[in-house]
């Protein structure tokens, strides 16, 4: 766990400085290790061979978020037997459990890989056109994608059923058996107890690089400059909203031109035109500065009268996404902030008079936590240079989006420019049968702030599924697969 920690002031160093040890770090000292206690008599002690094997597959995908689901479905589509391990009872991760809606836009044309095109078609079959607007005259929105959370959950189940992905819901990854630079089994906790999932290839789609950390892959976390992780959000939805009244208030009364579309596709945010409205709330004591540090709300297609709130954000100074205790405390703090915001909206925005909290996210909105250090390490320069790679798996022009007052980088690519993500950022030198997808790929803090959005995560997952199948069929280790030699690859570099 946490080898080669790269942040200048690491937690461990802090602990040393403080003269205390422990909590959240693997300790090097034997002094404090307690004598082994008598092994207990039950049948599921966590110690390699004693744990029964629950499932065996070609590929085991850990984590059923946007990238993990894409990886599992695509690997299965390419003929592999796939087990997908999900902690909750719904696929989609931040999209469904985290209420992160809509999916942010890549801000570049032709970024949709086949998996995304297929997903969007499935939405259309249910009567939802996920594209915010295709009209070029709207500068805002672009190709943000409106994946209604409950419908997405259903479609993901359908996709997995169609391609025979074995989804293991309600299962938590708690370890890995590793030997000779390969993972042989993932250890999972289920209602029944502990068990092993054996596979030839493992895909780490945990978002927190959990499997990679268990397997001893080099990881880092937070900003190289401040040591802080990106801010976490605790999202929620409000029902009973009269959307036209909200629209009139912001667009007509406050004259905010931020959103150029009208209900049923409408959003409001804290902008230069509306910040006064929120500051007055602070002055009246209704909200705090932290509560309104970032405010954004979107209508949800298929859920009339419900808005998805892209807030509150908890302070990155106080709550780190890589500390178990901080995350716990952030939940309590976020829940308090949600109530204050809901009250503020009800009181001050016409159209929210009868609104209520209809749903809280069931996972925190973590933007960044741990990141692996893989074969290729993406940096902010790759963004600024609009870098192309022969082994690219997708493209994006989403900016370096750091929610931190000190580190916000304003520079953006010119219109039409984009960068690519190489397959080598998904694999490591340490573990030959591991592919890492989603927000925890090999990238520095700045690069990760650009690659972390849902469409990019989905495209990475898709590529991992294809690469896993190609590698297994051709006897090539996952971390030796040459993406350029795969005939049916989901993305071909523009470089």
């Amino acid at each position, binding site marked *: 766990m946490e080898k080669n920690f790269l942040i200048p002031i690491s937690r461990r160093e*802090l602990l040393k400085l403080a003269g205390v040890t422990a909590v959240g770090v693997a300790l090097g000292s034997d002094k404090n290790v307690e004598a082994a206690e008598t092994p207990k008599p039950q049948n599921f002690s966590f110690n390699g061979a004693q744990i029964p094997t629950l499932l065996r597959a070609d590929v085991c995908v850990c984590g059923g978020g946007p990238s993990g689901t894409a990886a599992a479905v695509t690997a299965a589509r390419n003929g592999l037997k796939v087990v997908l391990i999900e902690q909750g009872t*719904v696929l989609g991760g931040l999209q469904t459990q985290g209420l992160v809606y809509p999916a942010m836009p890549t801000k570049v044309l032709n970024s949709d890989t086949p998996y995304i095109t297929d997903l969007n078609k499935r939405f259309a079959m249910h009567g939802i056109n996920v594209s915010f607007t295709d009209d070029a005259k709207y500068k805002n929105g672009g190709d943000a994608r409106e994946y209604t959370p409950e419908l997405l959950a259903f479609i993901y189940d359908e996709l997995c059923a169609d391609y025979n992905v074995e989804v293991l819901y309600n299962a938590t990854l708690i370890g890995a058996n590793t030997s000779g630079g390969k993972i042989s089994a993932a250890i999972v906790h289920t209602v029944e107890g502990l068990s092993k999932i054996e596979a030839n290839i493992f895909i780490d789609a945990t978002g927190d690089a959990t499997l990679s950390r268990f397997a001893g892959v080099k990881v880092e976390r937070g900003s190289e400059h401040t040591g802080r992780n990106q801010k976490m959000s605790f999202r929620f939805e409000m029902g009973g909203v009269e959307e036209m009244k909200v629209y009139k208030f912001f667009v007509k009364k406050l004259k905010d031109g931020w959103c150029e579309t009208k209900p049923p596709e409408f959003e409001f945010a804290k902008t230069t035109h509306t910040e006064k409205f929120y500051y007055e709330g602070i002055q009246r004591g209704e909200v705090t500065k932290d509560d309104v540090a970032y405010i954004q709300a979107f209508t949800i297609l298929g859920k009339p009268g419900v808005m998805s709130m892209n807030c509150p954000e908890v302070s990155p100074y106080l709550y780190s996404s890589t500390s178990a205790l901080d995350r716990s405390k952030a939940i309590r703090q976020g829940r308090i902030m949600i109530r204050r915001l809901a009250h503020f909206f009800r009181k001050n925005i016409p159209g929210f008079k009868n609104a*209520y909290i209809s749903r809280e996210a069931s996972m925190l909105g973590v933007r960044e936590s741990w990141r692996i250090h893989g074969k290729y390490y993406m940096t902010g320069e790759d963004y600024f240079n609009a870098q192309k790679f022969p082994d690219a798996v997708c493209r994006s022009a989403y900016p370096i989006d750091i929610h931190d007052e000190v580190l916000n980088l304003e520079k953006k690519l010119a219109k039409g420019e984009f960068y690519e993500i190489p397959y080598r950022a998904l694999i490591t030198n340490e573990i030959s049968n591991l592919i890492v997808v989603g927000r925890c790929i090999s990238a520095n803090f700045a690069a990760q702030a650009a690659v972390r959005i849902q469409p990019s995560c989905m495209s990475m997952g898709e590529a991992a599924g294809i690469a896993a199948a190609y590698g297994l069929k051709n006897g090539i280790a996952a971390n030796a697969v040459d993406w350029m030699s795969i005939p049916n690859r989901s993305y071909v570099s523009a470089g």
Partner: protein
Amino acid sequence: MAQGFSFPISRRDLLKLAGVTAAGVVLSGSVEINRAEAAEKISGAAIKYGDKKIPVLCSVDVCICGGGPAGTAAAVNAAKNGAETLLIERGIALGGLGVLGCVYPFMDTHAPNSDTPYLVELKNRLRAKGIEPFDGVTQQTWHNPEILAEIHDEMCAEAGVNILYQAVVVDSISSGGKISAVIVQTIAGLTAVKAKIFIDATGDAYLARNAGVDYERGYEKTGNNQPLSFRFEMGGIDTEKLYKYVAIELQEDWCKSKLPYFEIAEAMHRKQRYKLEDFMARGVESGEITQDEAEYMQGYTIIGKNGVMSMNCPEIPVKFSATDPVSYSKAVSFGRKMMRNIARYLIKHLPGFENAFISREAVMLGARESWRIKGKYYMVEDDYHNQSRFPDAVCRTAWFIDAHGEKVSEKLPAGGFYEIPYRALVTDKISNLIVAGRCISASFILQASMRIQPTCASIGEAAGIAAAYGLENGIAANAIDWAKIPAHIRSYVSKG
């Protein structure tokens, strides 16, 4: 900020201790106090676990595993009674099935004066937030899941409960008939929590099973667990229109209360004939829904969420098991499909549902029964029918034997009830373990009656009180005589 969380080991405290200030951090409070706390509470120890050494997160008096109705009540009451308490919850909200599972409202114990002080307080807090739980007729508790989550956080903060969210209890270490630590998977990896007393409020008796306690699962006659449900909420409902159709046009008198406390229900193959049975049967005939989907349908208005109903369905066929992880997983996808079919059918045909939509899915399946421990006292069906009383009773109930698919009993006569003894919460095997919630020591049939949320909360409340009392008086948790705890400390005193 973050009141009630007395862990000294946060990043912020570390920064303070280290004398390092991160840009923008406003330092306040006493470093000396933090240092003292740190010295006392951070064991600095690692623990040997399998072939690994893992850090000890903390050592507390009482560690509660599971933050559902029972676990939250246990934590709040242990802390209120002076114990240093850690509550471990795998999700990010307390309330378990009541919040994460959308199980709404709390069923009615049907027993007079069954509310223990914790429940009285819970209801008062709901009222203070504008949610009146009493519908004027029944003793069901109409709440609001989001407000309940908020209240649970507040009660924990006020009582000084430390909550560890997003953490899963995966294993335990025990010797000499005592659990010394539980192994917990957090986002940062595996860690150990040491405690003097452990309360198993996992619902699945996970910790008890892990520590070697005897257990049973399912119905001894069929081997089946109770059916799982996958609950959900629908928004955009015109409840006035629905009420007019169901209560006036169809003359369904099942729901005794009036809007905003309104319920629709239908269950096939029961003695009770519901007016909506024909409505659902027509869907089966037309092929729009399956017989499984039509078998049970129920919906309740949610107080404070206008136009939203909590759907007590679909009920997933019993071939899916609550105790088999693969079967459980398949039940999720199967249930989600049933949910969509039921929703589509209601939207298309039920007046008032024309503009409705699925507004929220539960984030855990509604498991009514999975594993049950075998404790010092084993409750059986006769305890229900005989209206058993126990000197060490922790609460009372008269909720009927509600074994979906297997058995539905006659209700006890008005005013009748049975009690639940403290001995059903403790075991001979592990001296420092108390089990609370649906997985206490009871037969399948009796469990079908005691499993409802208010009863689970009262059991948890007693567990918390007993844990603190035992610690203070040096009595092992499984040797406590509840009847000997001074009456003013006990949450419930048997009237014999």
